[in-house]
């Protein structure tokens, strides 16, 4: 095989995610009364970026063959923290942002420590930590409220030169500065390797524990960025149980749409970003087609079912029935 074919094979999931997103976004834009204007793009970008950060956090954990059911609650918790810290002048705001990201990092580190060093199963460990994080969020924000540095918030949810949404630039910066270096680093490769075959990775002397731990910690940071961005978007902090739960749910959906294998080791956070935008577009789609809002959850569910079933097509290529059972 030629080199580019290996590359194509590796990126297949991501490209599928991109294709789904472009298709859905095109349908959305063509039917939107205002068409392809900066305002429409900006609104879509801001809503998509929130889920994109959470989906990136989920991707990191899923790549190590785990699952993080607490991402939504880290997102809610950091939102509540940010509504206290990210205020005041430039210096205070900067310290506040660092504080929020550190809080997210700490949440991720707790999950990672429990799963890797405590040897608990990711599903149950993160179910338990999600209760703790939600409790903490409720503790610091019993009722919705708080404030945020509005200048910064307006800048980050606005657009550069009235054309490019700032949130997309921010997301791109995070991908270039954090995700790609991590992907290429030894730790990143160890995280991938432990997801595809932990035994083989161990035998080849990869630092799997550190790699997995780094993935959980970085996942916490990404979820924290999502929480921070939510604060910029809503100007308040709210310990919303429903919202945390649905972000966890849709982060998993976004990861699947973005071509990341839930068995670990395959896929990329970039795919998950496309998946997140595709998932968000489904919700907006109903708006442009003027569907009764009551139908929205059902149609979203049906779209999710169809997207998930696409993955089953691979079964037709299986030559040996034993390959059904991983």
């Amino acid at each position, binding site marked *: 095989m030629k080199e580019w074919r290996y590359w194509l094979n590796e990126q297949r999931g991501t490209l599928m995610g991109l294709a789904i997103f472009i298709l859905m976004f095109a349908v959305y834009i063509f039917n939107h009364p205002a068409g392809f204007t900066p305002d429409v793009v900006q609104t879509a970008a801001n809503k998509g970026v929130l889920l994109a950060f959470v989906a990136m956090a989920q991707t990191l954990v899923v790549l190590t063959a785990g699952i993080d059911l607490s991402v939504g609650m880290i997102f809610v918790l950091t939102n509540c923290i940010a509504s206290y810290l990210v205020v005041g002048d430039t210096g205070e705001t900067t310290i506040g942002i660092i504080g929020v990201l550190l809080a997210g990092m700490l949440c991720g580190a707790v999950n990672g420590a429990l799963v890797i060093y*405590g040897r608990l199963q990711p*599903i149950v460990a993160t179910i338990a930590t999600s209760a703790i994080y939600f409790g903490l969020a409720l*503790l610091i924000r019993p009722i919705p409220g708080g404030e945020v540095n509005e200048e910064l918030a307006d800048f980050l949810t606005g657009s550069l030169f009235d054309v490019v949404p700032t949130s997309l630039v921010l997301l791109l910066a995070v991908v270039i500065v954090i995700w790609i270096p991590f992907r290429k680093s030894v730790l990143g490769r160890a995280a991938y390797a432990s997801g595809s075959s932990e035994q083989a990775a161990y035998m080849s002397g990869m630092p799997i524990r550190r790699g997995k731990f780094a993935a959980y910690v970085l996942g916490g940071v990404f979820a924290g960025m999502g929480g921070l961005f939510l604060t910029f978007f809503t100007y308040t902090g709210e310990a919303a149980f429903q919202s945390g739960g649905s972000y966890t749910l849709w982060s998993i*959906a976004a990861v699947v749409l973005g071509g990341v294998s839930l068995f670990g080791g395959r896929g990329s956070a970039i795919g998950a970003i496309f998946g997140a935008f595709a998932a968000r577009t489904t919700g907006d789609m109903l708006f442009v087609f003027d569907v009764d*809002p009551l*139908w929205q959850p*059902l149609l979203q569910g049906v779209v999710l079912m169809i997207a998930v079933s696409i993955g*089953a097509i691979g079964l037709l290529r299986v030559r040996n029935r034993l390959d*059904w059972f991983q």
Partner: protein
Amino acid sequence: MSDMTEERLQTAARLPAFIRRIDPAVATAFGCIILLLIVGSLYSSNFLSPEYLIQQLKVASFLGVVAAGMMLVILLGHIDLSVPWVMTMGAMMACAAAGFGVSGHILAIPVGVLCGAFFGLINGFGVAYMRIPSMIVTLATNVVAQGLMVLYTGGFSPQDSAPPAIRWLATGFIIPGLPNAVIVWALVSAVMVFLYARTSYGRAIYGIGNSERAAYLSGMNTRRIVLIAFVISGALSAFAGVLVAGYASKAAQSMGDAYLLPSIAAVVLGGTSILGGKGSYLGTIAGVILITLLQSILAVMQMPEAGRQIIYGVVIIGMLLLYGRTPASR
């Protein structure tokens, strides 16, 4: 390492048979229950009164019915995340059926349970025949069930209240002093124990949980077995929803949200491996009682919701670290 194991085996061999057979996880879970009862009695003197304990059992029975289905699925190495809205759907459909006169009243419970079984069928088909990870399929069917119920209710909680038969099943008494809900839970438990201990189907569940490949090669129709397990789980979730509707005397949206995580926690705290193939039903009963008592003690202590959530999470992690750890990989 082998010396250690041998030594441990020898110590174990000296113990009487009935102690040797006890699963350490189940024993720890029951130990924790006793601990919780002692802690609770320090806070309130009527914590150990029979009325209070019976009331706890009644509350536990709803979670117990959900956990029975959840355990079946977890033993296979899968998970059922569609519990919340399948429960709600079961309750709402049962209440809706009761609106159709006398025959509706008779059919109310079967209709609710059948709706749950139908969603279980979709879950099972996706997992067993389409080989989609169970977490994804059940997540998607949960959203679909939610969508259907939102559409059905028009966005509001419908006012149809639970018919008398359902209310009687959840809160009435056949045997004086023992609520019917507890009897229902005991019956479900008896069926599950029989399933695991005395049927080839139960054996097959454990077999598939350990290695689906091996089970398939030894001639089991593994796909059908997985499918049936999901159908049972869906039916039991919906049945629990019907019971909760009877207890609260009406079906409400998001009534099932409070049951998903506790049911998984109860099964896992009862010593069932989340990877499947290992676990006992007695442990699940212990887990259910443990979770219910924990929630009740936190309520008795008049802990605010925030503190309740934190303690709940910390206790689950603590108990998992005590006995829910996977063996070291090297």
